[in-house]
């Protein structure tokens, strides 16, 4: 009977109900709706008040005993089959988190420093809600200027009145550490190049290519005008002179300004083609005039023609301009770092970071603000640990503490319901809760004008961070921590009980494991109740592209007819086009794959009438082992259906058999060949498309494949014989 519920466990509802960990944890039962109505002053921070807010936050974080964080993203999974499944292998699980963090954008970042005030006997919290938006602020290519939105997530944010206008119009941009370094290097070398080029060009013999009559007239006119301007300057250098314009061309006005103490003309309203012509004219006919590009106070480029007295003057002008540009570059890059200053603050202060179910949040922080995510979970954990030496996941804390589990009874695990259960005094102050066991938390809105304070609401990052911090403080109290004794500052890592939860995070909500960030080691979570029996990954076959009418029970029936009623321990549909089948024995994996390939390459009546033929109908059924599933999850492409994904990553074979020696054979039946394609009868196989370097390893000649095909047939016949 076991397999029946396993099969029925597949349904869209499974993915719909559980696919969005962030959403799940946030859906509150109606009983806790009161939480949302509580007025808590949350500071709204956008581009316009970022600078002062950051300075203020520096102080708050420095004084804080811990800092709670929360993120709102534009999505969780880039395709339904990328949802976190309970039986995902650790590496696959990390690939899914990595994909999510790389593809989606962070649109809100909640930061809430908590400080214990011994005199008041209360925590003082400062919830901040930062609107974040990855704007392109520098003329340098960056990887983050395109992001994905999951329609349901955006709709979810809208349901909770997320202000998209504030985010896109006013959101604070950022550069990761890696991007900052790259931008500085690219920009300064670009300026250096330009500087050198302009020097070099000076010596060059310049010929103006005059292709169009209009160009000819324009160049001539410019030449006259600059001559006129120079003459006037020499005649009356002291006068703030304004060039008289011919009435017919009054839209191009020359206005004498001063640039670096030298008379100059601001070039305004010219097309880049015209500017190019002007530069050529200047180089050819005017030794005293220098064409300069400079950035004004509003960060706008302006093009200026400057008059210099001598060669030395010209050189010194160039130097001044270049220094300006470099200074300007540095300032611009610093300003483009934007929100990352907040992250730098958190890492440099080395405060305890508290989040709720925050593994994905941390992955986002790493990816957006540090640099590209490492390829393995262990590397990731250790790199995070280096930057954030102390992180506590309140979800893990709440789940694994017996005291708190007792208090929680069976209520929902969403953040807001935990909050209203553990902290009723804060969540609904109107209810008079008569107990002294509740930790007091006071929210402080500072004096800098109340306009940027909103009353917090559930699913707003700032308020969620606040709730997380309150839950943490209360949980510590339940674990027996006495804050009064710790004044003036609390060192949570010195507390034995809290230490048990330090740096332990859930890699996903349904992984059934905890990862220790300080070691990178993943262990089973004792408090997790598994829905599936133990997974043996080497016993798993991945099948995809089968006829759409095949439901889990059909698939089971089909396979069991061939391999016996006990041959399957688990069938899981990744989506409607792909399934994972776990066999009871490892041998069955290859037996299945070889049989499948055999049936497909033969067109005799036995193959057609074979019970497995139902699964192979349509000729698009593919099969491979679990490693292929991992490879496909690792691809940066995300097609909605798994079958399309497999094609998009460049899988052209139909069956992949791994024999004992670790060698891989991949087969494609001849029916696959597209008409007009002069390819050999058996198509050779390529590796993942987005990794051309890998492919060379997989290059196998046709003969090789034919040979192996033959060999596998023999092998299969032998196996069939031996099983009889």
């Amino acid at each position, binding site marked *: 009977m076991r397999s029946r519920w396993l099969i029925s466990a597949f349904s869209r509802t499974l993915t719909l109900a559980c696919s969005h960990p962030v959403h799940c944890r946030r859906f509150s039962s109606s009983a806790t709706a009161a939480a949302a109505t509580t007025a808590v002053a949350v500071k709204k921070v956008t581009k316009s008040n970022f600078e002062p807010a950051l300075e203020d936050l520096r102080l708050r974080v420095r004084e804080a005993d811990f800092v709670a964080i929360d993120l709102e993203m*534009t999505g969780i999974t880039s395709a339904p089959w990328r949802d976190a499944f309970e039986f995902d292998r650790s590496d696959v699980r990390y690939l899914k988190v990595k994909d999510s963090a790389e593809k989606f954008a962070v649109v809100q970042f909640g930061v809430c420093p908590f400080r214990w005030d011994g005199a008041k006997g209360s925590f003082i919290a400062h919830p901040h809600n930062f609107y974040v938006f990855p704007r392109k602020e520098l003329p340098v290519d960056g990887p983050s200027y395109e*992001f994905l939105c999951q329609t349901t997530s955006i709709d979810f944010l809208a349901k909770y009145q997320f202000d998209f206008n504030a985010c896109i119009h006013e959101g604070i941009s950022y550069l990761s550490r890696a991007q900052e370094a790259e931008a500085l290097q690219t920009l300064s070398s670009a300026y250096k190049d330009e500087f050198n080029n302009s020097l070099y060009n000076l010596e060059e013999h310049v010929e103006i290519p005059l292709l169009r009559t209009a160009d000819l007239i324009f160049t001539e006119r410019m030449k006259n005008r600059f001559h006129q301007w120079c003459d006037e300057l020499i005649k009356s250098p002291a006068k703030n002179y304004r060039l008289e314009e011919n009435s017919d061309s009054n839209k191009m006005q020359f206005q004498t300004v001063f640039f670096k103490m030298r008379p100059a003309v601001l070039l305004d309203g010219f097309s880049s083609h015209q500017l190019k012509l002007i530069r050529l004219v200047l180089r050819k006919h005017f030794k005293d005039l220098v064409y300069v590009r400079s950035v004004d106070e509003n960060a706008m480029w302006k093009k200026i023609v400057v008059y210099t007295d001598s060669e030395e003057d010209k050189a010194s002008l160039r130097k001044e301009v270049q220094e300006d540009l470099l200074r300007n570059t540095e300032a611009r890059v610093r300003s483009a770092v934007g929100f990352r200053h907040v992250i730098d603050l958190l890492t440099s202060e080395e405060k305890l970071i508290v989040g709720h179910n925050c593994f994905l949040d941390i992955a986002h922080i790493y990816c957006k603000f540090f640099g590209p995510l490492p390829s393995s979970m262990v590397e990731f954990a250790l790199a995070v640990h280096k930057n954030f030496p102390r992180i506590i996941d309140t979800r893990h804390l709440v789940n694994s503490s017996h005291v708190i589990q007792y208090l929680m009874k069976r209520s929902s695990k969403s953040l807001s319901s935990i909050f209203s259960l553990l902290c009723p005094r804060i969540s609904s102050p109107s209810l008079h809760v008569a107990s002294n066991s509740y930790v007091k938390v006071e929210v402080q809105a500072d004096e800098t004008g109340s306009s940027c304070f909103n009353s917090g609401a559930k699913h707003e990052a700032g308020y969620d961070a606040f709730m997380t911090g309150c839950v943490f403080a209360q949980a510590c109290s339940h674990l027996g921590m006495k804050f009064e004794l710790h004044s003036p500052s609390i060192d949570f890592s010195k507390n034995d009980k809290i230490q048990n939860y330090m740096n332990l995070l859930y890699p996903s909500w349904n992984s059934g494991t905890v990862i220790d960030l300080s070691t990178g080691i993943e262990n089973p979570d004792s408090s997790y109740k598994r829905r599936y029996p133990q997974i043996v990954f080497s016993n798993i076959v991945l099948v995809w592209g089968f006829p759409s009418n095949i439901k889990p029970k059909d698939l089971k029936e089909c396979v069991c007819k061939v391999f016996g009623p006990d041959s399957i321990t688990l069938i899981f549909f990744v989506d409607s086009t792909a399934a994972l089948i776990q066999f009871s024995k490892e041998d069955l994996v290859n037996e299945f794959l070889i049989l499948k390939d055999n049936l497909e390459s033969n067109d005799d009546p036995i193959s057609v009438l074979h019970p497995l033929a139902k699964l192979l109908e349509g000729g698009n059924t593919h099969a491979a082992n679990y490693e292929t599933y991992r490879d496909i999850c690792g691809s940066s492409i995300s097609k*909605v259906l798994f079958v399309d994904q497999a094609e998009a990553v460049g899988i052209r074979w139909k069956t992949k058999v791994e024999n004992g020696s670790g060698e891989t054979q991949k087969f494609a039946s001849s029916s696959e060949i597209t008409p007009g394609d002069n390819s050999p009868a058996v198509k050779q196989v390529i590796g993942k498309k*987005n990794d051309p370097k890998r492919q060379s390893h997989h290059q196998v000649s046709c003969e090789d494949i034919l040979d192996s095909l033959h060999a596998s047939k023999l092998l299969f016949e032998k196996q069939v014989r031996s099983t009889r």
Partner: protein
Amino acid sequence: MVASSGKHRWGGAVKQITKSNFSAALQQIKVHIQDADFIAVSSQKTGDLAASSSHRYPWRRILPIDIAETAYLKAKLAAETFELLQFAVCPFRFQGSKVVAFPYNFHLFPRDELNLGMPSYSFSCQTSFLASMAREGFDFNVSIYDGISYLSRAQESIAKERTTPRVYSSSSSPSPSVADSIFIGRIKSRVENWRNACKDPCNMADGSLAKSLRKLILGGEVYGSRPSLSIDVCSDRQVQLALEMVTHISDDLVPLVVPDKSGGAKSVRVVLTSSEEDKNLLMSEIQNLEEEQNLKVRGFREVIDLISSSKKPIIAYNCLHADGNSNNNHGHNVLKLTRVFAKLGILLKIVPDCQTSLGQHTVPIEEYANIFYPISNSLQESEADDVDFHMDNVRKISTDDLVFIWGFREGTSAAELKNHLRQTHSVFSEDIELQLVDKTCAVVVFQKSGSAEALLKEIGSGMTNSTAPSKIISEGLKAAGYEAYKKVCRLGMWEAELADSLDCALSEPSGDLTISSGEDASEIYWSSESMIDLNDL
């Protein structure tokens, strides 16, 4: 509204349509579209890699080297990746000497109204697009909160299968098995009992308690004001049997199939009608319900269908890839467009009084209809004010004369590469032109026809007797003809860098792609004018 009236009056004249006023507006726009002489359209999207303003993957923009097919494939990719947030439609009518415009601005959002993962599970945003929309004062909240959703025609048919209860037409079926007869027998007696109970006049007089008791025992429900009964089914076969059985029992029973999420049948609902008229009434009610549901399903696509079925001339400004930088407030764009078009119309000597439909009768316009410019990007970056298309600098070039070169050091300039190539092979000393497609790949245009093919053949065969090609190879340089590029686009190998994509295409086993095939060579318009000045950017 008259288009010639002041600019400042446009704002109010553009009708803003969201979820809430969509059905009402639909009737109005239907009339306006029917009466229109032509319709202008314009859209706002979350990004467009094919657009000239996109800098992320330079080679994925539509470039002068693209033939119609590759340009279309690039536009297709962009259309599949990004979403529409606004679509402006402006039916336009000549009235005497005036031009009358009816601008509508539809706010869109691909909300999953039916909970089926449609119209899109996810979509991409280019921050540059969103930021420039923000600068123009675009209201994202309106689109996301109240935008009209939609399904494509293909999605609609899938959704229909899964959501609406349908009236099944029963067809003859194979002889029933034992299980079938048991199933039929069981439900037949149940339906008959239920029908008799409902029809029994003395039951009608019963009190409410007796009614609810009966309902409990017989399992009856109410469909609208009519009694109904649900029959659970577990296969399509059973659906068929139930339908046949119900129609056999009596004419006053109407069977409806209630689908589950996946599109399979969950149950058959039998509705009892009191008379022939009542039955017709029910059928038309169901029809209406279906239409209402359809509108909800199709959403904004209804407007597109209206425009498309009206067969009126459609005007869009470079609609294959509207430029992301040029988005002024949206409805206004359409108006500007219509003004331009009206002017053009006058220039082309269309008499505005003639009330006949434009498309069919006016030759001057016909000549410009259905011609899109898929190409408007220069290979090199250029400033927006320079994008005018100078035909005098453009000449036709056969794709056979193009060779893609990659494998050089990133950051190599076109001039450096050209010099370098000259040292590797004599063929490059001919009159050639070279431009960079992106950081990793360049395209070489050979003046002499046959040179490209000869070079590719030489490299392809890996000839070692001539030192020249081996020098190319030994330096890690790779080359391919236009076929490889076409293959990249056709198979959707949209890597970030063209060099990677070409590598992929070459590693595919079909045919020798290094050689461009002479048969289906096409012509492209090549601009030799190099207007690059990166310093100017």
